[in-house]
């Protein structure tokens, strides 16, 4: 129990390889067990240090530096075929390809859709193409693709119309007309199958028109000749 008190001091003395402090020294004079323990610990630390020193102070093999110089010479010798022209040309080609394909790959989905679909797209849910004429349900969002936020470039939840900026006003008026069920507007957006088409192809009947011959009096004829200077 008494020796446990000195355990840390004993280990410290062994590890530091120095003289123990006065208190420990006094204890060691009286305690054979602790003297043996200290000697044993010192031996262990000494063995560790010897093994480490032997290992980290080992000289490199005789051919080590010569081999190293050889490797450095190889490093300095330019490799055949390593012409920089090809490196530069390859890098330039890669840049050109990136410049061409990067905008296509990273274009917003609305632009890609624009290339593939007609500019105006109105879904059936808008009620415009159905004969039920539910104009109140018509929801058409006008949005120009360049102002579209990136976060909303995913699959749209509502039908949308992609309209160039200069045509937005006109389309807005048209949509308003459809919403008010204007006959003309509805007729335009109603599919041909639902329309009542006049199939009468006969020409309209027009009454004959009589055109009298042009007759001039003699006095008027003389007057006309004098004005125009011609006898015809």
């Amino acid at each position: 129990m008494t020796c446990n008190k000195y355990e840390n001091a004993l280990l410290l003395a062994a590890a530091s390889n120095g003289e123990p402090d006065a208190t420990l020294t006094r204890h060691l004079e009286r305690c054979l067990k602790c003297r043996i323990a200290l000697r044993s610990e010192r031996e262990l630390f000494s063995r560790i240090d010897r093994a480490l020193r032997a290992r980290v102070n080992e000289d490199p093999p005789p051919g080590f530096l010569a081999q190293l110089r050889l490797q450095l010479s190889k490093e300095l010798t330019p490799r055949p075929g390593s012409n920089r022209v090809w490196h530069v040309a390859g890098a330039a080609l890669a840049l050109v390809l990136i410049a061409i394909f990067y905008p296509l790959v990273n274009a917003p989905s609305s632009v890609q859709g624009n290339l593939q679909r007609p500019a105006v797209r109105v879904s059936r849910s808008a009620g415009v193409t159905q004969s039920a004429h539910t104009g109140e349900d018509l929801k058409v969002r006008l949005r120009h693709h360049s102002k579209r936020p990136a976060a909303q470039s995913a699959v749209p939840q509502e039908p949308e119309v992609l309209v160039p900026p200069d045509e937005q006003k006109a389309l807005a008026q048209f949509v308003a007309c459809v919403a008010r069920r204007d006959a003309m507007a509805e007729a335009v957006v109603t599919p041909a199958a639902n329309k009542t088409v006049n199939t009468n192809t006969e020409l309209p009947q027009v009454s004959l028109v009589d055109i009298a011959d042009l007759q001039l009096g003699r006095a008027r004829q003389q007057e006309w000749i004098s004005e125009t200077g011609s006898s015809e």
Partner: protein
Amino acid sequence: MQEFTWPGRTAETGLAFDLEKAALRREFEQRLEECGTLAFRVARGVLRNAADAEDVAQEAMLRSYRCFARLRDPSRFRAWLVRITFRLALDHGRSARRREQRESSWATDLPKSTSEDIAAANEFGRRLQEAMVALPEKSRLVLLLAGMDGHALEEVAKLLHVPVGTVKSRLHSARKQLAEKLR
């Protein structure tokens, strides 16, 4: 085929470039002997056999040569080399241990050495190696550098860019941990 030259690079600038390169090479070669040995010893402190340490030291020297021209402060080259070598040696040691584990699965049937002396000597080395692998990397590096001849604690502190007190505490902690494992 005519050799490619960068725009603006005349014969004079090319000559200056080559001279600078040659000067760097000479400067590196002056350090080669001293630093090559240092790299080998650091690697040897981490790895079990000298052949592996030689490979790692060569690789570390080649890497340091490639980056030598970009080193702003050449006086810190030794510290830089120590870190590169230590890191490479650790990586090499890890892959070697994995390889050994793979190979030991079929090598267990091989006859073992009968010489007890060799076995006893190797036993301490093997246990020391295991105990060192278990140490934190910072403590391990301090232990290796402090064990090298001619490396006072101040020199170790300079190489690792840490205060001398930190070196002392790391060294003490590392030796204590080793002793606990080897007791």
